[in-house]
């Protein structure tokens, strides 16, 4: 058995010396304790490649990674109340043992005494008042900002973005559970109401109730189970953030998560038989395909033309369940359905009309948060056992 025993060491600690801190924000206290523990360790913020904090309130690893200016290849916002930080040490040791990060930073901060709020005293996320007051109340506006810049910088067109929706709709017609089962044309996408330019209604995913679940087991357990024939080859993750106001909206965290997943999996792009690409909006797919290396940067719009994403027959069949654009986006979170359809493909249990023949290796990619501010990106590569 692989364990964490002697695989990780506690290098630095710091307890904030004050008990009433009315003159600091909660985020500043996170920064103070981070700097204190790193100084104790003889390290600096730029050495940190793994970040752990609780998820209480509106905080979490995405906001604090942005605030602290970190560049992390591993993140964890496990929230288990006061015990969170002991979970975090265990999870950090696992990550270090697995080579996913080398310097893990764990922080806690709050102001229940002087913060004027009840509960844990986390307050609002530090960026909230600089992003939340201008009408960015829905996700679509942020992705529209990204799409507009991508079109300006690379010549991507609304027609090319529409091709993504068309491919998803061709798949969804075979899924009786899909929210939208009617195939649409590029013209119909462009004729649908403009929601937030340049994104039309049909550039947006559906809003659905629902959920999903996944069970992951050890090889020993898998041996005795009849359906555990899909194995994880590799995974990469990153939080891409606003970069101290130098944000570039034309790429995603996939530029970090993708190469790490491919390297760990030991496969190349030509080995991938099927992809589940998070499709909150059509632009999400185009930027992600570029960042994962399926085409050159800026060529995503051209790449998706001519049925590239359509199964069967396309060069890179994607989202054969109809994706978030047509099938399902449960709880406004599409990540789990990306995993589920990839597993169906590897099992050979996708709808026969969209099943990729002899599907042996699949990639699933999730994008959480916003292309316009900060996002969590994760790339997962899986294989049918024996492939």
């Amino acid at each position: 058995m692989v364990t964490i025993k002697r695989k990780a060491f506690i290098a630095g600690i710091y307890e904030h010396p004050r008990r009433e801190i009315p003159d600091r924000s909660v985020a500043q206290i996170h920064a103070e304790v981070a700097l204190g523990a790193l100084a104790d360790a003889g390290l600096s913020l730029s050495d940190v490649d793994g970040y752990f904090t609780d998820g209480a309130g509106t905080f979490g690893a995405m906001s604090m990674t942005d605030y602290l200016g970190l560049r992390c290849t591993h993140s964890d916002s496990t929230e288990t109340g006061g015990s969170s930080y002991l979970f975090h040490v265990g999870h950090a040791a696992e990550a270090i043992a697995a080579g996913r990060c080398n310097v893990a930073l764990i922080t806690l901060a709050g102001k229940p005494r002087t913060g004027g709020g009840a509960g844990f005293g986390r307050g609002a996320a530090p960026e909230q008042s600089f992003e939340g007051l201008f009408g960015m109340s829905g996700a679509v506006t942020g992705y529209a900002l990204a799409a507009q810049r991508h079109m300006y910088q690379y010549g991507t067109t609304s027609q090319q973005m529409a091709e993504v929706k068309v491919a998803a709709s061709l798949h969804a017609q075979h899924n009786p559970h899909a929210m939208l089962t009617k195939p649409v044309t590029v013209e119909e996408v462009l004729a649908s109401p403009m929601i937030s330019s340049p994104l039309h209604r049909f550039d947006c995913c559906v809003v659905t109730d629902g959920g999903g679940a996944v069970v992951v087991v050890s090889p020993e357990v898998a041996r005795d189970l009849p359906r555990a024939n899909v194995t994880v080859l590799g995974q990469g993750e990153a939080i891409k953030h606003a970069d101290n106001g130098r944000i570039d909206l034309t790429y995603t965290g996939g530029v970090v998560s993708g190469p790490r997943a491919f390297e760990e999996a030991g496969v190349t792009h030509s080995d991938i038989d099927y992809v589940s690409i998070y499709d909150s909006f059509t632009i999400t797919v185009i930027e992600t395909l570029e960042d994962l290396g399926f085409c050159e940067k800026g060529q995503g719009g051209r790449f998706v033309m001519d049925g590239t994403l359509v199964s069967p027959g396309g060069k890179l069949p994607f989202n054969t369940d109809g994706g978030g654009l047509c099938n399902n986006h449960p709880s406004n979170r599409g990540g789990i359905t990306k995993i589920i359809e990839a597993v169906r493909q590897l099992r050979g249990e996708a709808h026969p009309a969209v099943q990729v023949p002899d599907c042996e290796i699949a990639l699933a990619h999730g994008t959480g948060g916003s292309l316009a501010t900060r996002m969590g990106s994760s790339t997962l590569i899986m294989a049918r056992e024996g492939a």
Partner: protein
Amino acid sequence: MSTQVPNSTGLPNLAPTIDPATAEFWAGTTRGELLLERCPDCQTVIWYPRGGFCPACGSFSAERFAATGTGTVYTFTVVHRGLGEYSGVTPFVIAYVELDEGPRVMTNIVDCDPSDVHIGMPVRVVFHDTGQGAALYRFAPA
């Protein structure tokens, strides 16, 4: 630097959450100043305001200075379906403005037809008072 002007666009002036790290920034907006922070150790101009902490080098001694208040549109969207307080004011423009000092700032473009907004457009800051100790920094054609 521009001074307070009436909010001619009809956009809601939502009040920010003011905390110890941002109190001076928001006080500046009521005087018609867009205050940025610059780190004396690495010279980085910081956005959003962190009250002294520099995410580029970990220093805690950044100092405030008044921005020129001018910049260009980095990207934008014309919102046709707003939510909450913004539901009744469509179409309106959300943008990232790249300040002359470097940072890209999320904001609204006001005082012009939304169809005239374009990437690269020169803009200057205007302030819309919330009446609660802060003004929202928005941008109009320069």
